[in-house]
């Protein structure tokens, strides 16, 4: 294909804005997906997932449950960047079949931030790193500059524009990695354990970023094990166990079955543990999942009886 065809194909289909909240458009769909790696430790069996535009979905589960594998499948990394010995079923990303569409087309819709930021940082400065993808896409200089300025502001890294990303803190490095993906204006952002290596300060920076992404209506799929902090920002939780989806529900319903949740090796937040205890003692009806929710329930209980 000539350079012009490539350019127009990409230019015509990229978003001008960061997306609108509220449109119930199914943006990712996995049907009957079964995948096996050559090493056959990581696999998925008969997975069905549907993600709507603007949703923030959390994938969780113990080690080797398949959560990262699922992330890779939903973003097209499997099968394009990673070879698998078996791929059955279909995944549709923004309406395109993940397996049959060339990776370049999928990639413009999906921004993926992997676990180790160091393996994703290509620039000697934050600016250099962020423009790397745009340069590869042959965007014009003006366009690159606009996107660069806009995204730097969004992730609050303007003061580090000329800094070497590898000298930054964990939270800042992670934001650089996210920024380098956001600048490519993907419709969906995939984050693989964004807070796992971070200290409390870094975690907070990422949570703020998540809130901003949510407000901007971005679709986000993330894998996390420490879910206590992430919970307020999440619309839906999908729990995996040995390659199968065992639970797929919004936070409230997700924690309803205490036995199941414990069996799945999910890190249950303190608030939920308290709620479980109260359910046992005084028959609390619903399981609140955030501090505010539990506070409201308890305050109401106390004021009701007065």
């Amino acid at each position, binding site marked *: 294909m000539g*350079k012009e065809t*490539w350019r127009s194909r990409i230019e015509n289909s990229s978003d001008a804005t960061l997306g609108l909240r509220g449109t119930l458009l199914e943006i990712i769909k996995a049907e009957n997906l079964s995948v096996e790696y050559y090493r056959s430790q990581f696999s998925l069996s008969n997975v069905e997932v549907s993600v709507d535009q603007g949703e923030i979905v959390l994938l969780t589960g113990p080690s080797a449950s398949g959560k990262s594998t699922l992330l890779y499948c939903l973003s097209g*990394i499997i099968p*394009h*960047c*990673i070879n698998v010995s078996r791929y059955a079923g279909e995944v549709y990303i923004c309406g395109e079949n993940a397996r049959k569409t060339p*990776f*370049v087309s999928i*990639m*413009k819709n*999906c*921004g*993926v931030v*992997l*676990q*180790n930021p*160091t*393996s*994703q940082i*290509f*620039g*000697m*400065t934050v600016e*250099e790193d962020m*423009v*790397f*993808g*745009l*340069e*590869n*896409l*042959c*965007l*014009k*200089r003006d366009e*690159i*500059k606009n996107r660069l300025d806009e995204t730097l502001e969004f992730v609050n890294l303007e003061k580090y524009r*000329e800094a*070497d990303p590898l000298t930054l803190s964990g939270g800042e490095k992670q934001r650089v990695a996210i920024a*380098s*993906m956001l600048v*490519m204006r993907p419709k969906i952002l995939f984050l693989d354990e964004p807070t796992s290596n971070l200290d409390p300060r870094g975690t907070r920076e990422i949570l703020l970023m998540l809130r901003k992404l949510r407000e901007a209506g971005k679709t986000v799929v993330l894998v996390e094990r420490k879910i206590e902090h992430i919970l307020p920002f999440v619309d839906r939780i999908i729990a995996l166990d040995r390659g199968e989806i065992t639970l797929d529900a919004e936070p409230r319903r997700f924690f309803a079955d205490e036995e199941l949740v414990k069996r799945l090796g999910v890190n249950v937040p303190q608030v939920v543990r308290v709620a479980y205890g109260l359910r046992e003692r005084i028959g609390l009806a619903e399981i609140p999942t955030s501090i505010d929710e539990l506070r409201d329930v308890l305050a109401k209980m106390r004021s009701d009886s007065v």
Partner: protein
Amino acid sequence: MKLVGYVKRDSAIHRLDPRVKIAIVGVLSLVCLMFTNPVIMMALFLFLVILSAIARIAVVFLSRILPMIPVAASAFVLWTLFFNYSNPDSGARALFHYAFITVDQASVMYGAAMSFRVLTILGLPLLFFATTTFNALSLALVKLRLNYIIAFTVALSLRFIDYGLEEMSMIREAQVSRGLKLRTRTMIERPQNIISLLKPLMERFMRFQEYLAISMDLRAFGAIPTRTFYIESKMKIWDYLILAIMILFLLGSILLRLRGWGIMV
């Protein structure tokens, strides 16, 4: 512990076009290899140090050269002991004589020359990478008609040398904490020791490489035959001037060399 990393400064050297810097490295390396006079060798090395001062990275440069001192010292010892250049009839004073090893004034001079040559040859790339970002380097390589995929891969690999050293250090700490003795006399234990350090390193390297490859695909690297370069790189007057000086320097050196100057007899 950055050995190869870019050191951000605002200096004349940093602002030079990377192609000119490549030329400087090339010319100085050639000149270095052409001559054997220790005074010239020392002058070349000092010139390098002066350049690092102009680049405002003298301290960093010297601290990075420090690990190379043992190499230079070995060169000195080796050449001094084994180099037997002087004509037996020339009357040169023999300083030391043992079996087939003869050390005389000429050998010492030659040894000195070699050790400075080592320092210069090793110091040139160090200076280069301390003053040139890998992106600028790739740009230069592309303009020199090198395929940008190759150019990038080369430049990236160099950057991650430092990362590799860090990983190595972490693995060493983990294994030493399990009682691994790094200096052991028993021959039986030694291969195990090396495996305990190398195998985890290889695994980490493989995993890192996998992630790296995926990351590059995610940023559309290589998807389109050409690419935009956000960072502009045009040759300015200064660049042409320096380039001209370098070429003249090279030609001059070749001439002098052909006349037999600057080498030891």
